[in-house]
């Protein structure tokens, strides 16, 4: 906490007037509202079976009609001959009557679809917990959440991505296709690179960079990391670029990959206002990775290099925690004393002492 903050914190004598009567009055109102909610919930619970029966009747009638006309109970609505709804909520638009697909059973929680003939567009519901694959001839297209076309063209398969990123694999190799990219797989030796998008590509930005930026914009860090891991060169040297890359790595569950980006911010941009944040985040990331001793050093640097940073107090508490976790309780206790001295009214005093084993 800075001196200025301490001044601010003590300068506004705000008070809420409170007495026992107010407490009891409010408590009575809270109980009344809780009881009203309870009665409403009971009413809803009673209504649910009735609604469920009605739904089953309506659904049963519709289902019977659809089966009678199209002969395919999983096809939906007016476009019953073209759209297939999958159990995970994803859907496939079949291009024509010649297109045939088969959903492989017994691979849950994964979803595997065989494209046996023709072409289809796949709209895949995002779910990091399950794998979604389309197998077309010798080519496998694996996705997290996206929209793409797959078409069998003789011995090869055409894949075109409309949103998100997919991994296209064939016996010899695999390739990541991002938004607006397309290609024929397995590729001819001379046509190994994906075809660049024709429109809206922007000037100077690669498709991968665009896909990365787009994923980050949507906060789809899993997808952004998939692009980043194959195109590490798309990260620039600015603080924004490096912090974003660190966020993408951390928030997609790849903490160790965030470390170099954060270290680069600290080393290359020490005078930037976000450098202490990078060092602090580095410490937290290292703690999450179980590298407590390195984490302690990172937190210590926040305090030594940027002593006026508003993060200094938090860094000291975290440093105490890191020292304790690395088994150096003596140091943790010394640091806890340091906290008492530096922040006598500090909000995190109790936490600091608890980490140091003093409470």
């Amino acid at each position: 906490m800075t001196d200025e903050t301490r001044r601010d914190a003590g300068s506004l004598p705000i008070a809420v007037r409170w007495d026992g009567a107010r407490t009891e009055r409010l408590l009575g109102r809270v109980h009344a509202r809780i009881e009203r909610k309870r009665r409403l919930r009971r009413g809803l619970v009673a209504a649910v079976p009735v609604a469920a029966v009605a739904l089953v009747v309506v659904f049963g009638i519709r289902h019977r009609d659809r089966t009678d006309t199209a002969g395919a109970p999983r096809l939906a609505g007016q476009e019953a001959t073209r759209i297939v709804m999958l159990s995970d909520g994803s859907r496939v638009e079949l291009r024509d009557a010649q297109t045939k697909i088969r959903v492989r059973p017994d691979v849950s929680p994964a979803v595997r679809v065989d494209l046996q003939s023709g072409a289809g567009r796949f709209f895949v519901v995002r779910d990091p917990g399950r794998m979604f694959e389309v197998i077309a001839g010798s080519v496998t297209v694996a996705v997290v959440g996206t929209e793409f076309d797959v078409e069998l063209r003789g011995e090869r398969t055409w894949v075109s991505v409309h949103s998100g990123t997919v991994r296209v694999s064939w016996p010899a190799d695999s390739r990541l296709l991002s938004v607006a990219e397309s290609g024929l797989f397995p590729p001819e030796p001379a046509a190994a690179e994906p075809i660049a998008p024709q429109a809206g590509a922007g000037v100077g930005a690669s498709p991968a960079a665009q896909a990365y930026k787009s994923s980050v914009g949507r906060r789809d860090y899993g997808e952004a990391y998939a692009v980043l891991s194959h195109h590490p060169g798309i990260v620039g040297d600015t603080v924004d670029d490096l912090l974003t890359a660190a966020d993408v790595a951390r928030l997609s569950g790849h903490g160790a990959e965030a470390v170099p980006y954060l270290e680069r911010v600290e080393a290359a941009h020490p005078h930037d206002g976000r450098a202490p944040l990078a060092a602090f985040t580095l410490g937290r990331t290292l703690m999450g990775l179980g590298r407590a001793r390195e984490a302690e050093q990172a937190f210590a640097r926040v305090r030594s290099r940027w002593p006026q940073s508003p993060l200094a107090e938090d860094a000291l508490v975290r440093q105490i925690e890191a020292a304790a976790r690395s088994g150096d309780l003596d140091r943790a206790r010394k640091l806890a004393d340091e906290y008492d001295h530096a922040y006598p009214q500090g909000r995190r005093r109790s936490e600091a002492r608890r980490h140091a084993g003093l409470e």
Partner: protein
Amino acid sequence: MPPAECFGLAPLARRVQDWGVSTGTVRALGDVRAGGLQAALADPVDFDAVFRRYAPYVGAIVLMIVGRPDDVDDIVQDVFIQAHRGLSGLRDPEAVRPWLTRIAVRRSRRWLRRHWYRRLFTVGDAGAIDDMVDPSASPEQRAEIAVVYRVLAQMPADDRVVWVLRKVDGETLESIASLVGCSLSTVQRRLRAAQAFMERLR
């Protein structure tokens, strides 16, 4: 009728000290480790005990953020109705205070967003200011609070909440991030925006 007690920043801290707890901050009210709380949590259905202990503290947090004494009761009720659903899941007495604080902060922010138009009427509302100032405050302090909350009334809710928690309540950035439910960098960005706003209008 006995005079109403004041629960706020400095006054509340004094009261906590009067009760024999060695702390100088408002938040320490939630750290009071009296047998009553342990007993209350040992019996999770004793919601009333938790309410009686923490309602004034929650009221102080809410008032500090929304700056409208007349609306504090409604928000405090919302906080405890939400808390009622999860209280039985708490096993650690020390977790009650930060948990209630988090609910209070988020409920207050939601109130600010939904009632943005009402914030405008805070401007120049001398009665509202009188009702939220410690009676022992000097005229200068009273005027300062009026100015600060007049500017806060114009500020976006997210920036306002972060600024109040940091500058009025003295929370650390990491704690604010946890209370508000956002990243550290977002807290810093909102704080900078709020500070710039404050300096521009003040």
